[in-house]
């Protein structure tokens, strides 16, 4: 963080040459380079990092995408692909000497096949729009990131986005069958297919979650699922966070796979309750939302079993949604959590670590210590079912000292996640935001493999460079600043 730079000095000659080359095949309205037009693209959902791009290209057709890539490749211009710009890790942060390739105009649903249960969509189609358009067939697209009304499927593919129903229905990688697009040199490429198994290596899995570093996607085939007949959710209160964590483990140990299993701590429920009036128990130290879906009989069975487990785990209060309006109200608080933080603090910083669930108590205690250490508040929302934490550090970006403290706070929490056997990012991606923590999570040999994989797709390193995987030299530099327990990470690297 702290890289909110003024517009860098643009190499005007270079800019002119790139614009001229793109204008050969793109209409005037599809090439932006005046600062008042390019400024809106300076950041994505991670607003603390900003760079005004040299040029923004807004192609309409796949052929235009191909020619943008061919042109940039020939001129050695880096390209940063961008979907809806809702990403939280700076994956679509532009480069001052690069072309920002916006896929915003690719908004078409190409084909719906309700019998084979697939939809073919362009990458700019919003996540929630897919479920809307297939709803008449009783189908839906399962992954539901909190930003689903705004985020696009192309961005979901780039980040391998999740949501609140991942434990039962999986992430993007489990729900996409095929993607089509181009490699950085403009060569057409297709990964996966509408058949379930494709021959050779599983390159579809490699490309999903590759943060726009391996290919540019122009079409996506998603898997559609039958919409469950009904769903009900239990809201359970606990007087202790550890007890709530143990209740989650107990539900799963009882052989139940809830459709959704979310936790919020007291500061989080207080912040959202004021905002959306979801009816949360404000006395509770933590609340759990535990959802069951299926046929009405099945849901009744499962809700009864879940209630018994939650009660036995020491829940102080239980309420079950009686109808759909109730259910949506229970969820409204959780889904509005980020927005609510915006109301109680000028800025918030959302983390995304995943931990083994059994270490939850320990990690939450650690976060509470960090709140004291850095003098910043940090409410927690938690995809409890799959161990994915979203602590939200509240700060004021106009105070440079708070910004620095926030950055250090976040780094300590992410490294704690690694230390307990987890990961620095469960669903938001590394982007530019967590790139230094990649040096802690992976050894240099693994990072070398990542760079080699990147070179296999993009030998010149022109597609979204500088994101997701840190240069080894950067890790050496980071390690020098960051000696832990007397041991230098990456000791084999030369220091400078």
């Amino acid at each position, binding site marked *: 963080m702290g890289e909110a730079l003024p517009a860098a000095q643009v190499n005007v000659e270079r800019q002119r040459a790139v614009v001229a080359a793109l204008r050969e095949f793109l209409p005037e309205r599809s090439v932006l380079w005046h600062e008042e037009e390019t400024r809106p693209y300076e950041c994505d959902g991670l607003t603390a990092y900003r760079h005004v791009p040299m040029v923004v290209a807004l192609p309409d057709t796949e052929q235009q995408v191909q020619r943008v890539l061919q042109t940039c490749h020939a001129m050695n211009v880096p390209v940063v692909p961008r979907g809806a710009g809702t990403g939280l890790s700076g994956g679509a942060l532009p480069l001052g000497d690069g072309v920002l390739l916006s896929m915003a105009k690719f908004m078409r649903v190409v084909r719906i096949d309700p019998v084979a249960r697939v939809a073919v969509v362009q990458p700019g189609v919003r996540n929630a729009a897919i479920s809307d358009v297939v709803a008449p067939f009783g189908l839906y697209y399962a992954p539901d990131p909190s930003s689903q009304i705004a985020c696009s499927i192309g961005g979901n593919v780039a980040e391998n986005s999740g949501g609140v129903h991942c434990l039962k229905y999986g992430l993007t990688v489990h729900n996409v069958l095929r993607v089509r697009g181009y490699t950085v040199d403009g060569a057409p490429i297709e990964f996966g297919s509408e058949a379930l198994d494709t021959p*050779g290596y599983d390159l579809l899995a490699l490309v999903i979650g590759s943060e726009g570093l391996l290919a540019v996607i122009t079409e996506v085939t998603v898997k559609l699922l039958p919409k469950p007949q009904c769903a009900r959710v239990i809201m359970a209160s606990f007087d202790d966070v550890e007890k709530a964590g143990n209740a989650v483990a107990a539900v799963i140990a009882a*052989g139940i796979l809830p459709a959704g299993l979310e936790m919020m701590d007291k500061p989080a429920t207080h912040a959202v309750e004021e905002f959306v009036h979801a009816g949360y128990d404000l006395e509770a130290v933590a609340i759990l939302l535990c959802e069951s879906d299926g046929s009405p009989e099945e849901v009744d069975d499962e809700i009864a079993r879940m209630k018994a487990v939650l009660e036995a785990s020491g829940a102080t209060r239980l309420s079950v949604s009686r109808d759909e309006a109730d259910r949506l109200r229970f969820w409204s608080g959780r889904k509005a959590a980020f927005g609510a933080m915006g109301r109680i603090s000028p800025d918030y910083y959302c983390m995304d670590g995943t931990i*083994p669930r059994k270490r939850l108590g320990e990690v939450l205690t650690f976060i509470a210590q960090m709140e004291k250490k850095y003098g910043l508040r940090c409410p927690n929302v938690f995809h409890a079912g799959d161990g994915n934490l979203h602590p939200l550090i509240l700060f004021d970006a106009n105070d440079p000292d708070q910004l620095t403290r926030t950055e250090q706070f976040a780094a300590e929490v992410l490294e704690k996640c690694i230390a307990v056997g987890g990961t620095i990012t*469960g669903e938001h991606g590394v982007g530019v935001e967590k790139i230094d923590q990649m040096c802690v999570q992976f050894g240099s040999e693994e990072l070398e493999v990542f760079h080699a994989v990147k070179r296999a797709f993009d030998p010149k390193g022109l597609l979204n460079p500088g994101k997701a995987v840190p240069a080894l030299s950067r890790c050496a530099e980071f390690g020098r600043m960051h000696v832990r327990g007397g041991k230098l990470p990456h000791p084999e690297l030369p220091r400078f």
Partner: protein
Amino acid sequence: MDAASASFCGRIREAAEAGQPLRLRGGGTKDFYGGIPDGEILDTRACAGIVSYEPSELVVSVRCGTPLAELESALRANGQMLAFEPPHFGAGATLGGCVAAGLSGPRRAAAGALRDFVLGVRIVDGRGRLLSFGGRVMKNVAGYDVSRLLAGSLGTLGVLVEVSLKVLPRPVAECTLQLEMPQPRAIEAMNRWAGLPLPVSATAWQDGVLAVRLSGAPSALLEAAKRLGGERTEGEATEQFWEGIREQTARFFAGPDPLWRLSVPPAVPPLELAGTQLIEWNGALRWARTSAPPTEVRAAASRVGGYAALFRGADRSAGVFSALSPALARLHRELKAVFDPAGILNRGRLYAEN
């Protein structure tokens, strides 16, 4: 580094220096699958054991040489399972071979494929480096998803020293419905039902009979069985039937004709091929016993946007898997060079040049 990993590293490093091909092998139950293996055997079975298993985390970490049967019984003792129901194809099947082959069983269309359950791997690559990707948590998007790339790579990129898998609770109840219907109607019915909120966990059509397995709460099964009709079996009879499909001990799989595995979009109409067929995965997997020439079988699959692999019982020397597009073939070569630049691991098992 533990002794088993160290010995893999040493052996592979020596082989890479000498340009000596190695053939990775666990129980050898899948020797029949893929291209003809080449090189000295590197036996993975000494590297065995469940490293960690915590049922309430839904994660198990297992060394490659662990017998698949041992893993499954440990999961069963805790009411859990590998939801992708991998075929063993013999008593000695190991977890490493299972993940390397990447094959999923009857529950695949409902629960997901083997690769969907891979959370992390530790491997020794073709340069003798011990590498770790992914982890033991459900959600992890740090770095490229190399773990899933390794699933189904047939040992051509590295030895899977340890694999972490997501596991799921076993269904409370299961039953099977048998319905008489011809192939076109069965394909139509399987796809239609898959689009409805029904607890269907597996389908198999053969010889004019469609078998549908239901899994879930007893109340849901009762209701669905009423709706779908057919003759109902439960308990051991159900388990044995699906075991026969999964392990290919059912009668369909016996006989002299070559066995082909065709992966196609699920709703395509019956494939016109001589011989007999067995259909799984709501129509997406079609087994064909046919003496038709390979070009004809491959054409039947590619006409409908699918792929054909020669599974058992014919000459494998002309290649087993459908050819890749030139762009994908190039990426395969490049990725092989990343992990195994000397080209010594399971040479020719996937494609001639992999």
